[in-house]
């Protein structure tokens, strides 16, 4: 039997930097393959090459045994290679039926739009994956999991033979992941191959036949899925064991810093109460939809709770007002660095200095040398590697960008720092360094709240863990009393 897709010697360099170096593997019909790798390992480049968006420097790509020349999006799609991007690339203003049938109709070079035919295509495809959705619903009204489903159906409607899924599970709750796996099994039985591309693959391992691991553009491991587990995947992806040590124990006499009492926002979280002591790192975890992000935002005033209170060192903090939160000494590092955290086109120095404008204003005018000096100081202290502080912040790597956001808040000398997903999209090396920074900060008496679903991260950084489920805090755990499996179980059950 010939393989559905066979890659050999795929090499790609960008401006002298090798993104992919002689990578090759095969995918058979109906097979599910995990392509694992850190950010920057070359996996996105590989997807783009398969999708025909980028041209490799050198490669032998075979679809069903036939050697392909230069690919373009149309050719790849015609060969049945479909990519489901992380953002799904759907049309929010069109209906479910139209979204599903759009590519198929384009592929068939239709000129006229026939609503009945489009509905028929959509209905048949949804039936194939065994899910019912309202065909006339606008996609913008759907949940993330349903949007993903529409994206899968769109690929299927265009006769997908290989569906490439980019980070398919990051936005899904555990239950939704299970639903997705069920659909994947059906597809495999149908002969459709699936390539999962992710840096968090443990949850999809069970439906995969094969695992390929990339590191720095090279294939470093390949084998049957049964040979891998979460720990060995991480080891291959990073090239070292990153077993981090738990934090030093908290001083039992550490004073109370922040009290949260009965914080409630209908539909997001209810009756959330906890204490945070000076120097303590408190982890809050929960699945997507558990209300953890809304709670994180509420601590910083970005979301207005309808009831409850937050007291900092005995003083009540006005709710629902970020300015009041900052005045009280609360800082917030958002989850989505690129859209929420950074001003990408602005300079690194400005991205840090924006938090300290008021402090450097004299008679209405800014003391610019003082402002930039302070910003540069913090960038040095956090070891941000940048050609110049005047360079736009978008030129930095993920890890360095995260440090810029941290620097902005540290410059304001906060008393409590809320970190939402502190190492999302950061490579493993920088991750350990960011954990080191968290540790150093807490040692100075700063209270830190880490909100994350990265369980090893929580275990490595936190003194105490709170588990959220359906908007409530359901569990309080000491990291010493638990491990990753136990924690995962408590989050989901």
């Amino acid at each position, binding site marked *: 039997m010939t393989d559905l897709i066979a890659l050999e010697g795929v090499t790609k360099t960008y401006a002298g930097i090798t993104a992919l170096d002689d990578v090759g593997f095969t995918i058979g019909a109906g097979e599910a393959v995990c392509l694992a790798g850190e950010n920057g390992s070359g996996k996105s480049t590989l997807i783009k090459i398969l999708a025909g968006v980028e041209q490799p420097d050198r490669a032998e790509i075979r679809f069903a045994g036939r050697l392909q020349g230069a690919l373009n999006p149309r050719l790849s*799609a015609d060969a049945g290679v479909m990519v489901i991007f992380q953002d799904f690339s759907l*049309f929010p203003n069109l209906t479910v039926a139209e979204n599903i049938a759009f590519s198929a109709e384009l592929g068939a070079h239709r000129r*006229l739009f026939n609503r009945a035919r489009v509905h028929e295509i959509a209905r048949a495809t949804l039936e194939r994956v065994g899910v019912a959705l309202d065909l006339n619903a606008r996609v913008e009204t759907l949940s993330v999991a349903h949007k993903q489903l529409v994206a899968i159906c769109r690929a299927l409607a265009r006769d997908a033979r290989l569906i490439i899924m980019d980070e398919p599970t990051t936005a899904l709750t555990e239950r939704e992941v299970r639903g997705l796996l069920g659909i994947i099994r059906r597809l495999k039985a149908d002969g459709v191959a699936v390539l999962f591309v992710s840096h968090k693959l443990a949850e999809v391992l069970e439906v995969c036949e094969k695992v390929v691991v990339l590191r720095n553009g090279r294939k470093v491991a390949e084998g049957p899925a049964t040979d891998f587990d979460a720990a060995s995947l991480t080891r291959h992806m990073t090239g070292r064991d990153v077993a981090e040590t738990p934090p030093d124990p908290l001083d039992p006499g550490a004073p109370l810093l922040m009290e949260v009492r009965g914080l409630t926002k209908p539909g997001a979280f209810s009756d959330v109460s906890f204490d945070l002591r000076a120097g303590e790192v408190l982890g809050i975890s929960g699945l997507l939809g558990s209300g953890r992000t809304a709670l994180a935002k509420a601590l910083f005033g970005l979301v207005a709770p309808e009831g409850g209170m937050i007291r900092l060192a005995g003083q009540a903090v006005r709710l629902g007002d970020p300015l009041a939160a900052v005045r009280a000494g609360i800082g917030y590092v958002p989850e989505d660095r690129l859209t929420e955290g950074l001003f990408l086109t602005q300079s690194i120095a400005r991205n840090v200095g924006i938090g300290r404008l008021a402090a450097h204003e004299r008679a209405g005018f800014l003391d610019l040398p003082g402002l930039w000096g302070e910003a540069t100081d913090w960038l040095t202290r956090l070891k941000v590697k940048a050609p110049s502080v005047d360079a736009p912040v978008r030129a930095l790597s993920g890890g360095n960008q995260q440090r810029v956001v941290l620097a902005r808040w540290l410059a304001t000398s906060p008393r409590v720092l809320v970190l939402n997903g502190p190492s999302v999209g950061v490579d493993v090396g920088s991750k350990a360094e960011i954990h080191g920074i968290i540790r150093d900060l807490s040692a100075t008496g700063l209270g830190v709240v880490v909100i994350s679903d990265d369980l090893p991260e929580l275990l490595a950084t936190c003194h105490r863990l709170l588990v959220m489920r359906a908007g409530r805090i359901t569990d309080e755990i000491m990291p010493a009393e638990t491990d990753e499996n136990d924690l995962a179980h408590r989050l989901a059950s």
Partner: protein
Amino acid sequence: MPKIDLARNEWLVALVIVAFCALAAVSDPRFLSIATLTDLLRGGIVLTIFAVGAMLVLVSGGIDVSFTAVAAFAMYVTAMALNAVAPWMPWWGALGLGMGIGAFLGSINGTLIALFRLPTLIVTLGTLSIFRGFMLTFVGQKQITTLPPGMREFGRMMVVRGTNADGSFYSLHAAFLVTVAVVVITWAILHRTMLGRTIFAIGGSVESARRIGVNVARTQFFVYVYVGVLAGLAGTIHASMARVANPFDLVGLELSVIAAVVLGGARLAGGYGTLTGTFLGVALIVLVRNSLIVIGIPNTWQSVTIGVLILLGTGLPAWQAKRAAARAA
């Protein structure tokens, strides 16, 4: 029967129109007459054609402010060219020439936007100056009071003509049928062709469209050419009905037309817009322009009234969206 949803602009605008008409009918019973209706229809013809084009651009995620200059250019050059070289051209030839000129000017917008990927507002702002400047500098600045026979013929064409009970005349201009045709054709393009769905798709997300292999440049090019065609048509109709081609006419209307379209529910961000809404938006603007005095507001307050309507029509949904976002976050 769709349920009445006040968050949707169509319903809001329809209610305001009904309220306006009710008030007008109470203060002047003669308001509810065929004569008023035909007057309003006549006043709305050019605006409706413009608005249909403006709506299409908004749906595609762009904005066009140059269409009035295209219209003025097309009508003036058509009148001048026909007078000079082809006075025998029948009315449909005149409209065709106007549309052809509009298509050519639209293709300039289309090239700059689709090929050079420049922001639509800036491009059309620039071409607004260019088209108008070119016409007034190189073509002419004088009104053409003697229109070519084809345009004169079209100017006199009526579908219905009659006398009211009180002896006043009413008539429905043939251009009304052209407008109906424009609406029907545009509806068919938007809802019955893949091209139309693609226009909605790129308005919803250009990036998604590119990724699934939509030829975005070609679609955008079509949109701006089509708007050019509609503008050329509207311009030629305007001159025919006014029986004069004044190169200084029309330019300045562009923002009011876009306002009417947005009142009807089209979103500046792209992807949303309906012909019904567009029609209602235009109807409201025409009503205010023609009949404000009937409900006891002096005509000097016209512009204030339209401004208030725009702020209400866009403010209510914006405010609701903002509150919903605050609740959801």
